[in-house]
């Protein structure tokens, strides 16, 4: 489903470059639920951004489905993001002046879906998230957990093959985090690949697989129960 080969990524700095990803090789299959962990500066968010076509890479190849994602134009990148990928952010990133329904329907607008169909599908998706009674509410009128449910509904509205979640529970209390993870597990159970960047071990433990990065390199990759807790390694400090 997702295949990275020798991915390298550097950021320009005054007087040189800062290598962030140093030769990442990674395969993620359809329907997997993967946690990416690592200390601050390990490159986990950059990796997620590369996977989400939000950021480019300098060296290597990236295949999404059967399509090579190297050297995509800005417009092609937007199209693939719209068709294959869904995003969930730590700070929800709902558009403040749009209602929950309008936020969820927005990705369909960029796919040029007719307004009536957009609204119908968005309402159905909100219903699946148990948020249909909040359809007309603005983000400011929703709780953190409700905002993240709306954000997940927005990520799912285009029927993506992959959901990329950057610290999806980072701004939530433990109860709400549990609810959100339950939703993501249900999403994954429907066959959608879910990739979560997190620094919380209990979140990672709810995934099938955990990948640990350190200094731009994958240092561990295995079933979630098998990857050693960062505190036990004594090497990494959570973000």
């Amino acid at each position: 489903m997702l295949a990275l080969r020798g991915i390298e990524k550097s950021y320009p700095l005054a007087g040189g470059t800062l290598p962030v990803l140093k030769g990442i090789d990674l395969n993620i299959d359809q329907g997997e639920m993967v946690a990416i962990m690592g200390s601050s500066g390990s490159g986990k968010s950059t990796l997620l951004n590369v996977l989400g076509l939000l950021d480019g890479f300098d060296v290597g190849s990236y295949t999404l489905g059967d399509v090579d994602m190297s050297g995509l134009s800005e417009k092609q990148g937007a199209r693939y993001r719209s068709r294959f990928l869904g995003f969930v952010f730590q700070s929800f990133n709902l558009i403040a002046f749009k209602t929950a329904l309008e936020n969820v329907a927005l990705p369909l607008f960029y796919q040029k879906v007719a307004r009536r169909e957009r609204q119908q599908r968005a309402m159905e998706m909100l219903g699946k998230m148990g948020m249909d009674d909040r359809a007309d509410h603005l983000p400011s009128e929703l709780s953190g957990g409700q905002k993240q449910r709306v954000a997940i509904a927005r990520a799912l509205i285009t029927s993506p093959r992959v959901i990329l979640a950057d610290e999806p529970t980072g701004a939530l209390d433990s109860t709400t985090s549990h609810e959100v993870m339950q939703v993501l597990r249900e999403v994954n159970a429907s066959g959608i690949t879910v990739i979560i960047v997190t620094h919380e071990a209990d979140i990672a433990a709810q995934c099938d697989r955990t990948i640990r990065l350190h200094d731009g390199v994958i240092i561990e990759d295995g079933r979630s129960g098998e990857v050693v807790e960062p505190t036990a390694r004594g090497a990494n400090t959570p973000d």
Partner: protein
Amino acid sequence: MFNRETWIEIAHTVTANPLRTALTGLSVGLGIFILVVMQGLGFGLQNGVQQDFGDEARNTVWVRTGTTTLPFRGRQPNRRVQMRNEDEQRITEQVIDAPAWSGRRMMWGSTVGYQSEQGNYPIVGVEPDFDDLELLPLMGGRWLHADDLAKESKVCVVGENLLDELFKQDEAIGAFVTLNGITFRVVGHFSKNGRWGNSMVYIPLTTMQRVFTGSDEVDQMVLSTGDLDLEGSTAMVEAVDGDLRLRHSVHPDDQRAVRVRDNQEEYAMFERIFTGIRLFIWIIGGFTLLAGAIGVANIMAIVVKERTVEIGVRKALGATSGSILSLIVIEAISLTLISGALGLIAGVATLNVVAPYAQHDYFANPEVNLRVTLTALVVLVVAGAISGLVPALRAVRIRPIEALRYE
């Protein structure tokens, strides 16, 4: 690009911060409003002066004499210089080659009577060319003929006001009126704009001199400069001025004893003034519009900066740079267009309200040049589009991840 969703988004954005939007709109609207009003006032001034000039042909020279203010060749000041028929004859036959001319003698506040009606009107003695020199539009009957002057006929041509005030419903042509008690026959009537135009009663100059003044004195002399350009008319003025000063022993620097006014020169001077005024209006208007455009650029820069994260989110959700660019530019254009249109409407409305109360000798019909104003509006909209385009281009160049990280 122009779908309902786009307009809803624009409406959301502009109403999200109503005070800021209103102030920006005000700066744009005020720019157009000031431009419209200033243009209207400029045109009003120009119309007023042109209307005033419209009383007289532009290619005329008006000669007046007065009292001397300087001693000259043994003569004391405060001496009355009086033009006479011989001056006119000499000047038109020997000094200059004028295609048309007329002496003019005026009696203010004369009593004009028709049957039981009477009133006070100025009576003016003139010569046959005068209607062309003064641009008198004849509405009925005829103008004064050379034969009327030769025979010193008691005929007159009356202004439109007399028709209303004395003749009421009666036919004026052929009717008899009394001018200071002397009976005259009305041979024509005219209609003319201006302060006194329609209250004048014109009679042959020779008749006036015979019947009323008992002398060959004339108050004024009007000379046509024909096809002469400004240089030619100036030469004519100098020749007439020089001759009168020589004949009447007037000091060359005495400005009050002999006054020769060249309409062509005065009109050219007013033209220069109006060119200056128009330029001034454009400069002020241009800077006002620039201020409005800067206001829009400022708000768009702030809006785009505030929405950087949102732009990142939209990109992550599949928005292309083009769709974001068009959204921001349409927003800038809409803001400019709506504010500008409101300013335009307010400006035109103000002029329409003010116009009836602002009629003056040198101010009339403060009209709006719609073509110029619409051009200004288009310029402003283009400026608005550019104002939105610059920050929008900067925003869409940011990669989605940079936009999402933006604080």
